[in-house]
């Protein structure tokens, strides 16, 4: 039994057999095995070689039939390498002498060969590196377990272990039997984590090397509530987790019962709880959980697909579907936020030295005006179906906001000329996600219809921490006093200017911050559908003066730790049965 600590993306307990997603493109971290596990590890290498040879044989046959013998010969060479007794004994020696795991020993030997090919002068031979990499991946895939393609074919519930998942891989989990996810990479606010949260099943990320500690087939417990993963749990642990799993299901049932109740504080102040969505079908889930609207529709997920950017009509029908499912409730559509950790097919190979500070979000939109205009046209066309708001992400300057708005007006003029209707009351706002925008909030208030605070990026830029980098993600915390003060100031200025101000970052869905946010005057929260019940329950237990007192106190602390300790103890008092 081994207990690994990570960052939780969704609460709850999942217990199941592990499936390890292929180990491509990452370094297998070191792992030693006990002496009595050596024969089994050696067997795994031999089995992986033999299985790979069979796999390659089929592949070569198919290629021979379709593309001719030259293509098939490429794989014949791979088969030759896998049959190489010397190669196998190299790996075996490392396992026996150094007690390395099968995956680690294999990877080391194959990387060693890759390095030697790299030193060669003949370009033809240097090219063989690709083959050696390919063979390495095939072997590791075979040693570490099932492949990506197999996920849709799972016949029993499993827990998925991987180094990392792309947003599109994550989005496909809904169609599988996966009941929980544990990842090496990532922080609580990566886009993969955001998707996992809306998927709603237990997930822990930032586990650093779980994908090499688990080989697939063993039992794994994902305890999202306590941010841990237990591998090979012993009998008492397993029993305890089974009980907790049942309790969590009961609790979420209770939260679902809150659906019909209003989100008002004990002293009668209504708080708007909206949901964040990535796909139109999620609107129904949000509404079902009690959302009063869609506070953040992340449209970039439409663009992150193998076929490339969607056409105007494709976008129009997606937006229309979301607006119609909202049934008259407001829908805030955020224009595509691409770049940084989300790339389209077209841009996926461009490397930037510092993508988080690079060509992303509104900057990318304003440099790709054709793409941007198509989206704005699609949103405008769909806007006749309901209460639609347009929101521009990552605004850092007034000029940027004006340019984006001008592009929107261009699109309106075009529609006007073509005689296509749109909603003339459409509101135009921005996400407040950069320190620059927070400092200039007063000026922005003169030009926007509404502000939505995106805390994920705001915290990242305020604290200079890459939220996706597991080596520094511990420094990423919304409890930092600087964050609290910026939030208070922004809300205060907006209130004075009578501009609608809401919050839509992950912070909005965390019980830990909910009371504070009410206390500084926020009345509109947007969060993953799964969090609505919990936040509503909390709001119904507090009064505004109580929240104000708490906020005042929290703003007086000097360190993030003091802030989070204080907020945790207060929240626990109000919601004793919930893990905070």
């Amino acid at each position, binding site marked *: 039994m081994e207990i690994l600590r990570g960052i939780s993306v969704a609460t709850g307990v999942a217990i199941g057999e592990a499936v390890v997603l292929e180990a491509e493109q990452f370094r297998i971290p070191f792992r030693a095995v006990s002496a009595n596990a050596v024969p089994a590890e050696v067997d795994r290498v031999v089995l992986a070689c033999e299985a790979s040879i069979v796999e390659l044989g089929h592949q070569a046959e198919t290629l021979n039939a379709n593309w001719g013998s030259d293509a098939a*010969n*490429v794989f*014949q*060479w791979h088969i*030759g*390498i896998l*049959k*190489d*007794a*010397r*190669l196998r004994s190299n790996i075996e020696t490392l396992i026996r002498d150094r007690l390395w795991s099968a995956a680690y020993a294999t990877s080391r030997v194959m990387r060693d*060969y890759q390095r*030697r*090919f790299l030193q*060669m*002068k*003949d370009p*033809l*031979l240097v090219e*063989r590196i690709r*083959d050696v990499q390919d063979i390495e991946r095939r072997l590791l895939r075979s040693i570490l377990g099932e492949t990506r393609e197999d996920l849709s074919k799972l016949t029993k519930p499993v827990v998925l272990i991987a180094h990392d998942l792309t947003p599109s891989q994550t989005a496909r989990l809904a169609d599988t039997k996966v009941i929980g996810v544990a990842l090496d990479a990532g922080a609580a606010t990566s886009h993969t984590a955001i998707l996992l949260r809306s998927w709603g099943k237990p997930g822990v990320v930032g586990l650093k090397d779980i994908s090499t500690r688990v080989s697939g087939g063993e039992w794994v417990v994902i305890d999202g509530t306590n941010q841990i993963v237990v591998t090979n749990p012993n009998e008492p642990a397993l029993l305890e987790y089974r009980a907790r799993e049942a309790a969590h299901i009961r609790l979420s049932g209770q939260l679902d019962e809150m659906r019909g109740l209003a989100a008002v504080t004990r002293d009668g102040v209504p708080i708007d709880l909206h949901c964040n969505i990535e796909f139109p079908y999620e609107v129904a889930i949000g509404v079902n959980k009690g959302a009063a609207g869609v506070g953040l529709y992340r449209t970039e997920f439409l663009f992150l697909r193998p076929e490339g950017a969607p056409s105007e009509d494709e976008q129009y029908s997606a937006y229309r579907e979301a607006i119609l499912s909202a049934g008259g409730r407001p829908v805030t559509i955020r224009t595509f936020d691409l770049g940084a950790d989300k790339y389209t097919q077209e841009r996926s190979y461009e490397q930037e030295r510092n993508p988080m500070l690079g060509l992303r979000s509104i900057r990318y939109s304003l440099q790709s005006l054709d793409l941007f205009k198509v989206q704005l046209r699609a949103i405008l066309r769909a806007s006749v179906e309901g209460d639609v708001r347009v929101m521009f992400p990552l605004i850092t300057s007034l000029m940027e906001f004006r340019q984006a708005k001008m592009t929107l007006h261009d699109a309106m003029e075009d529609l006007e000329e073509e005689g296509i209707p749109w909603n003339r009351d459409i509101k135009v706002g921005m996400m407040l996600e950069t320190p620059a925008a927070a400092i200039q909030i007063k000026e922005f208030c003169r030009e926007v219809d509404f502000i939505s605070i995106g805390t994920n990026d705001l915290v990242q830029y305020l604290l200079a921490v890459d939220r996706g980098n597991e080596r520094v993600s511990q420094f990423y915390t919304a409890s930092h006093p600087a964050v609290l003060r910026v939030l208070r100031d922004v809300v205060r200025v907006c209130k004075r200017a009578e501009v609608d101000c809401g919050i839509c970052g992950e912070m909005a869905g965390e019980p830990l911050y909910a009371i504070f946010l009410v206390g500084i005057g926020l009345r509109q929260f947007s969060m993953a559908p799964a969090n609505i019940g919990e936040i509503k329950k909390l709001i119904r237990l507090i009064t505004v003066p109580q929240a104000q007192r708490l906020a005042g106190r929290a703003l007086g602390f000097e360190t993030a730790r003091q802030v989070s300790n204080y907020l945790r103890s207060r929240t626990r008092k109000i919601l004793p049965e919930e893990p905070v």
Partner: protein
Amino acid sequence: MSDAETTYVREVEIPNKAGLHARPVMQFVDLASRFKSQVVVINVTRAGGERVDGKSAMQMMLLEATKGCTLRIATDGPDAQAAADALAELVCHGFGVHPESASE
């Protein structure tokens, strides 16, 4: 080990344009593996050329043997002479157009 066990060495120059790339290596390894003798190959053209196992496809690739390089094929075992001759022949003929005819 039989009485006939002996060491046998042949040196041959690589005539074919592409040198010891993937397919020729496979032919060489396939042929070498049909003999009981040990096969050690050195690329004497390269300074500090290492001794590699002639039955290992991966190691043979490391010889970096291009056109014009001289290979020393050293065989050791009951069928050492036959092995050395057959392998030298294969290399001399530039690995043939048809793998089968080259491995006679």
